[in-house]
């Protein structure tokens, strides 16, 4: 059964049409990768799911409910977490405060907190430091950690590898593999090598349209298809 379904989504920002026709389904479990070039509409797709842009027309179904047009906070409370491209870390707050905000009650579930510490030991070390003092990779970790500190059904992650050193990208990939055991991830990426390793299912977006969708295994094996839909730039 599919967890999230986008049906003929169209999103305009001001007078510009950014998404023309986006339809795909994210099955429950594992990592779903949305590939695409810069400006293809990847971020807009995630923002539309989160309710930060309003699509019209088109519909978004999550766990069988229509969530189109809901307020962002309601969408979040239904179990979708968002790790935006700029990470959305609150620089003026400490790491601890950033994490507390991601809980609904203001209290941590000990087991989950322990898991976060295991995945990202740096966060424990900098627990009481202001978030602006973290490095780019650590901020990315904090942003992901916020998304998993509570039980969520789906995590939207926007280009987590952008601007990070290769070793950190590697560690991030390991973390995603582990997280995806229990939570579905919708990952937006430009970095095909990174995506190939993680993805089970995938779709390719170009110029606001889904131009291909299928399993990652098929896609990775089909060089001709890759050349055709990704171009040589990715």
């Amino acid at each position: 059964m599919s967890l999230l379904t986008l049906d003929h989504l169209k999103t305009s920002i001001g007078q510009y049409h950014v998404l023309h026709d986006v339809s795909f389904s994210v099955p429950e479990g594992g990592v779903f990768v949305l590939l695409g070039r810069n400006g293809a509409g990847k971020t807009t797709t995630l923002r539309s799911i989160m309710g930060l842009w309003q699509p019209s027309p088109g519909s978004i179904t999550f766990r069988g409910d229509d969530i189109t047009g809901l307020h962002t906070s309601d969408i979040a409370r239904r179990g979708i977490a968002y790790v935006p491209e700029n990470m959305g870390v609150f620089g003026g707050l400490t790491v601890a405060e950033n994490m507390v905000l991601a809980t609904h009650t203001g209290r941590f579930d000990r087991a989950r907190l322990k898991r976060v510490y295991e995945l990202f030991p740096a966060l424990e070390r900098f627990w009481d430091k202001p978030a602006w003092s973290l490095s780019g990779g650590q901020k990315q970790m904090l942003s992901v950690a916020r998304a998993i500190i509570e039980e969520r059904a789906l995590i939207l992650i926007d280009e987590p590898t952008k601007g990070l050193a290769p070793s950190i990208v590697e560690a991030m990939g390991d973390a995603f593999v582990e997280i995806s055991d229990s939570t579905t991830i919708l990952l937006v990426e430009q970095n095909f090598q990174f995506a190939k390793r993680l993805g089970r299912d995938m779709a390719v977006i170009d110029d606001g349209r889904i131009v291909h969708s299928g399993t990652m295994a098929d896609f990775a094996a089909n060089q001709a298809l890759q050349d055709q839909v990704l171009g040589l730039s990715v």
Partner: protein
Amino acid sequence: MDQLSQTLGKMGGVFLLPLAVALAAFVLIGAPSSWLTLTVAGLSMGMMIFLMASGLSLVFGLMDVLNFGHSAFVSLGAFIAASTLAALSGWLGSPSVLLNIAALLVALMAATAVGLVAGLFFERVIIKPVYSDHLRQILITVGALIVAEQLILAIWGGTPTTVLRPEFLEGSWIVGGSSIQVYRVFAFGLGALVYLALYLALNRTRIGLLIRAGVENREMVESLGFRIDRLFIGVFMLGSALAALGGAMWAGYETLITPALGGEMLVIVFIVVIIGGLGSINGTLLGAILVGLTSNYVGFLAPKVALASNMILMILILLWRPSGLSPAVK
């Protein structure tokens, strides 16, 4: 040089500025007793302005809403307090200090309560339809300011209103040859108390945490599952109530008020939040204290330029730090 600036940064950075200003003034004025009087006057004026400005700054930080009508709450608070005190003149005249205090408290609370209600009305009717449209926001809030000022004129009239003060706040203490007005000490104390409460609320409570996070990145707070717009109504009401409280205190300080009071304070409040940096309570306090001190010192040293001194201060600070001394992290 680097080391010096680092040490200064550790000691409080830009928050040392009022101290530097006070020291410079001490040297320039020469007479310690006059300096002390002026410093107390400046600090108390700064605290009253802080009350008026803090809400404006938070509201802007949280929702990117700049309310040109903010000063209407200041006027409203001043007149509500004046009317309440006049109605309670029996209590004020009584020899019992307790009744005196009760009258004062009732007046301040009345102003604050009216500020809360007016803030709610203002947010729902005036501001809400124009979130995120700056041009119309400026126009509408200016329109609301006009209407509010005219209403105050219609109700209280254009002639100056006398503000009664309880006996125990009258007069001054003589400390080391300089006279210190009791009311000023009271204003400073009340302002400091409010600042402390705000500071604790922002830094020790969950709602405060949400506000601080919302000032930085509204979308992200919503993506974590919280409604900023509902929080915003609360902050707006609180800001209006504080402005009304500030106006009430200012009324007692001036003792003679006209409906033009709010408009006059609006410019000072703007200068304070620009200097301090929008969206931060600490910045607003810093800006308010700086403006309070400089106005009083310059008023003594060079009365002619006193009224322009705030403007000059603002230009200097903007040239040095274009987004204010201590803006919220964005």
